[in-house]
């Protein structure tokens, strides 16, 4: 039997693949690399691309798309941790900046939409109570 290596491909949302392979092609940040069983321990970053898992015994090759992430290679196990969604340092920073501004806005703006919604509910309750009181008076 040919030598095999165990492969796990996971993302934060779900387990994408788990099984054995004779070799696996990974889109490394520094270029594509193919990992065979008994590879030296290695940790590297991935760039977006597809992971090709070559299965033993003529099974069909698995093709898994990853959005970048990290891969850990041990002699008999390969673990691929895929990112969810498209990541980039600049993109992340820009989005974070936006989130920060939104928070500052909310802090400054105490009468934000939240408060208005709350006030509307309170107003509706008060109106309903008044109507109920008037109805009761009429009945009396």
């Amino acid at each position, binding site marked *: 039997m040919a030598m095999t290596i165990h492969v796990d491909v996971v993302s934060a949302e779900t387990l994408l693949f788990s099984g054995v392979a004779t070799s696996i092609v990974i889109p490394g940040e520094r270029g594509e690399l193919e990992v065979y069983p008994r590879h030296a321990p290695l*940790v590297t970053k991935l760039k977006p691309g597809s992971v090709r898992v070559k299965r033993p015994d003529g099974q069909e090759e698995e093709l898994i798309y990853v959005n970048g992430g990290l891969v850990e290679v041990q002699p008999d196990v390969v673990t691929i941790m895929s990112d969810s*969604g498209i990541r980039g340092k600049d993109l992340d920073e820009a989005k974070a900046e936006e989130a920060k501004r939104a928070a500052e806005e909310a802090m400054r703006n105490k009468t934000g939409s939240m408060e208005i919604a709350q006030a509307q509910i309170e107003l509706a309750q008060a109106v309903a109570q008044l109507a109920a009181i008037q109805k009761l008076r009429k009945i009396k």
Partner: protein
Amino acid sequence: MASSREIRVKINSVKNTKKITKAMEMVAASKMRKAQERMRAARPYGAKIRAVMRRMSHAKTEYKHPLLQKREQVKNIGLIVVTSDKGLCGGLNTNVLRAAFGKMKEWDQAGKQVHVCAIGNKGFGFMQRLNAKIASYLTHMGDTPHMEKLLPPVTVMLEKYLAGEIDEIHLASTVFVNTMKQEPVVMQLAPIVDAPDQMAKAEGDPDRGIFEHHWDYIYEPDAKEILDTLLKRYIEYTVYQAVAEHMASEQSARMVAMKAASDNAGTLIDELTLVYNKTRQAAITKELSEIVGGAAAV
């Protein structure tokens, strides 16, 4: 005694309420199943990343990452609070917020400034009313946790931490025990503490005890960059998992709360029906005795 017409109106209104709570109960039950599946689907990633992290932190000692370094003076604390957007789910959000508030008071007394990252409408509203310093927030998440939506507010906290604006990050959230039981927890996110946390226990972490076993890794491009990405992903994932877990808890708690509400409505209807029948009976008796009295007088 209230007139029979009033009681009838009341019964109808309670019946309508019961219909609504019953419907909400069933919606929550079906959503709960999906939310629990999502929560479980996220676990393999956590188990893997934790295992790799543990192996790496022991293999590589010369580089000290800030996310692993305990700071000597802790003046500013970041707190990520995970709550839901909607209410009507029992004491779920209240419990989380109470736990978070307790910690905040503690820190406040120790003279530490708290920066809040509020995830979920309930937590956001609460923190606003508290006049807490909100660094970032996220509301309107829907029924599925999305990593993409979660990232910006979490990145704000991470950047603040790395820039030295905050010295510790804590996470207040709910741990899903089972459908009937959800527990609020406040745990430390950064600096990363290697303690057996409750989430790892729930995952049945297969890599526990791998401490002594270390690999001499080849790092590409270098250890610093890899470790940096890995630790950030780990923290992001932990928050994601907390949100997934909170969402599963929310649906379960809502289902239970709505079931209780439907049951209560049922009891109330029974009681009101009894009163209604008594009133009707009394009215008939009164009328009869009046007729009899009238006939006797003639």
